[in-house]
């Protein structure tokens, strides 16, 4: 089915405040927005997220691997059985050699095709993977540095690029050394990519457009595209994107301007949204002298945020959190502390902790004025500031530039970069257990190792994490993670304020849209009138 006429065939993206299309060579940049637009449409990974349901959590499903299991004797070794008959877009076969090659591209510095530019965005998302070994054409063994049940989840981030296609680029590349040739080959590959995903690259113009065409030979009939062509245009400015939709220049925009929602609907367009595994919190400091060391204060703050009011401020484009993951999620765990708006209970807790209107508790939060995933940090934080005032909190902000805040996040609350703050407002993705929970609650992830900015953690949490990491049965792993999540909510190392709902606006011509509870969305099953 043709995807619109002259101007109707374009799906622009906002691309996370960046004026560029995410990298197209297999390992996209720009975080999960990159995976959404150039990873998942063009490439496959060994494991996939199920993006077919809007009303259930997005769970792990087989991708290029049909099945996987950890070695019964050595829990650092996993065997993955691969899907037969899969071809890359250039016609070469996907097999165990391709998996080994794709692991080596980011983990083996001695490999000719090793690419430093892909390491950061990939290796950090599968922190324990060390190597891959071919057992036979359709079986591969992956080794981790320690027993890690999260590996199959992490592998959704390792996209399989075609080794044969890259080799052609390498053979044709100019360069004095193999490393120079490899660098040139990756640049050429990015401009003429080959994965095995439901869409093939047709045209790429850096910073201007990416045109994808349907891969009619895709291995999954449910995801074989019915749209012939998709054009992605980077538009970093929200009002410009909105105007492009309203003028009929494009059929889909990401993150429309919040104050244009009513106009967009009036014009007959459709706004899709669903709570994402995205958390917009204040991450609290447990360093010596922090006002958040008292659990009553942490609970009071969580009970004193008027989330309904905040949602109104955002035109309804916000989910109200009950924790890092929502009730009904496999990792929910039914915590005993209920996060809700109950100012009376919050005031009671604050009074017990020795605070009152005359003697408010001073807290200082480091925030940014903008940033990817930060939603609208200034008005949102000011709203929370006002909301907490009624519960005897005197909130002060330290507003800094987004990239600097991001860098400080790694340095921790004890670093001079914290500038006297005792909370930090950095939103994060909660797709997998490490990123959602482990990095914020383990004593092994204190700064500068990872993002446990507030130095929250103790032997109990380390044990809960270890239990989850070594539970290799899916149900047992989820149960262990649920225990961890419940304890996190009960101890409240965050003030959970909002979940993003990923609003996107489309013309009514776009049909078959399923917006899952995920950072991602699958373009393949969509159709155009």
């Amino acid at each position, binding site marked *: 089915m043709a995807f619109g006429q002259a101007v109707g065939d374009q799906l622009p993206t906002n691309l996370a405040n960046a004026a560029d299309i995410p990298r197209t060579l297999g390992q996209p940049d720009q975080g999960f927005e990159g995976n959404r637009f150039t990873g998942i449409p063009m490439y496959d990974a060994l494991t996939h997220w199920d993006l077919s349901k809007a009303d259930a959590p997005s769970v792990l499903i087989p991708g290029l691997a049909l099945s996987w299991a950890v070695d019964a004797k050595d829990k650092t070794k996993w065997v993955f059985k691969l899907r037969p008959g899969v071809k890359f877009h250039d016609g070469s076969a996907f097999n165990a050699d391709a998996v080994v090659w794709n692991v080596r591209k980011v983990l083996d510095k001695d490999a000719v095709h090793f690419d430093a530019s892909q*390491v*950061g965005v990939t290796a950090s998302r599968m922190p324990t993977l060390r190597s891959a070994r071919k057992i036979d054409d359709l079986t591969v063994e992956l080794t981790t540095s320690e027993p890690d049940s999260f590996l199959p989840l992490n592998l959704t981030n390792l996209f399989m690029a075609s080794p044969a296609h890259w080799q052609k680029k390498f053979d044709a590349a100019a360069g004095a050394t193999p490393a120079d040739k490899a660098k040139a080959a990756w640049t050429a590959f990015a401009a003429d990519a080959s994965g095995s995903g439901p869409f093939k690259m047709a045209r790429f113009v850096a910073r201007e457009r990416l045109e994808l065409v349907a891969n009619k030979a895709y291995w999954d009939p449910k995801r074989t595209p019915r749209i012939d062509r998709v054009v992605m245009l980077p538009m970093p400015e929200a009002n410009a994107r909105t105007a492009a939709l309203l003028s009929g220049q494009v059929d889909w925009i990401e993150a429309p301007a919040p104050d244009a929602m009513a106009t967009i609907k009036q014009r007959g367009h459709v706004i899709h949204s669903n709570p994402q595994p995205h958390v917009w919190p204040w991450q609290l400091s447990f360093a010596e002298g922090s006002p958040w060391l008292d659990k009553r204060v942490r609970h009071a703050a969580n009970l004193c945020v008027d989330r309904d009011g905040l949602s109104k401020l955002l035109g309804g484009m916000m989910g109200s959190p009950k924790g890092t993951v929502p009730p009904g999620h496999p990792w929910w765990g039914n915590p005993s502390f209920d996060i809700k708006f109950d100012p009376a209970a919050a005031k009671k807790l604050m009074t017990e902790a020795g605070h009152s209107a005359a003697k408010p508790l001073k807290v200082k939060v480091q925030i940014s004025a903008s940033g990817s995933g930060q939603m609208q940090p200034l008005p949102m934080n000011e709203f929370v500031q006002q909301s907490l005032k009624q519960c005897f909190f005197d909130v002060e902000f330290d507003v800094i530039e987004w990239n*600097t805040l991001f860098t400080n996040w790694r340095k921790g609350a004890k670093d001079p970069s914290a500038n006297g703050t005792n909370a930090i407002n950095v939103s994060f993705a909660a797709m997998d257990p490490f990123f959602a929970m482990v990095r914020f609650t383990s004593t092994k992830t204190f700064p500068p190792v990872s993002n446990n900015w507030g130095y929250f953690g103790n032997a109990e949490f380390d044990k809960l994490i270890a239990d989850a990491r070594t539970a290799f049965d899916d149900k047992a792993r989820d149960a262990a993670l649920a225990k961890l999540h419940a304890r996190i909510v009960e101890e409240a190392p965050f003030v959970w304020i909002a979940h993003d709902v990923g609003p996107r606006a489309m013309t009514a011509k776009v049909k078959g849209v399923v917006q899952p509870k995920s950072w991602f969305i699958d373009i393949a099953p969509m159709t155009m009138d």
Partner: protein
Amino acid sequence: MLAYLLRRLVYTLPIMLGVAVVCFALVHLAPGDPLVSVLPPDASAELQAQLRTLYGFDRSLPEQFFGWVWRALQGDLGTSIATSRPVTGEVLTAVGNTLRLAVVATLIGFFFGCLFGFVAGYFRNSLVDRTASMLSVLGVSVPHYWLGMVLVIVFAAQLNWLPATGAGPGSSGDWAWDWAHLRHMVLPAITMSVIPMGIVARTVRALVAEILAQEFVVGLRAKGLTHFGVFRHVVKNAAPTALAVMGLQLGYLLGGSILIETVFAWPGTGFLLNSAIFQRDLPLLQGTILVLAMFFVLLNLLVDVVQTTIDPRIQRS
């Protein structure tokens, strides 16, 4: 003339070196990690160190600076951290797109600026003067990104007469001077021309008023020259300054269009700078700023030369 030109060229060299130093220092003085675009904050310390070495950020700043200048002299501005594409190619493509837009905006601004300025100056204190002056003050005062958004709302979102964004129906590389492409340029070019128009109009108005008060104009009138004849002399006397102002405005437009290019998703240097800043892509940021600064320096040189050609008094001084 040749000696003057050579002297001006020699003066340009230390300016260029200074520009390179400032450009490098500013980018490196800004807080934040240069590897932020390729290194998530959850990356391990080991991985951070590994990438720092691979990208050469473990070397001392002087070492990095001289390496960068040496490669830049050979036309290699490095490789973008975020995209791994050569910076030189990225910048040149963007400069071409911005130049196209800036020249058209400059021509519009210059034409209407001169028109308003000469008319207002020649008919001082009349209704025409007040109207033209009001328009020029508006041009200088109205924030151009705001004007751009208003134009988009009216002409793209409401009337659907013109496209809201982009540099053509395809990519900027397919640019042609036909209506299909020019319609994409109308709104950004008008938005961009407003400030130079206002500045030129105000400058020319003041110049014309000053020239008209000079004795030679009285002499010209005493000789019996028509209004048009006097006007021609006034134009000739005002032209060097107007040209100099316009040259500087073109320089500003080449580098100062971040907001307009972002609003209109025009893939020029402003769009590139926006991307480089948000991704903290140091090689791209340095390369773009350097090229823009060099443009500015060379444009100043060109304006000096043109001014000297038009007005020999400058050369003699």
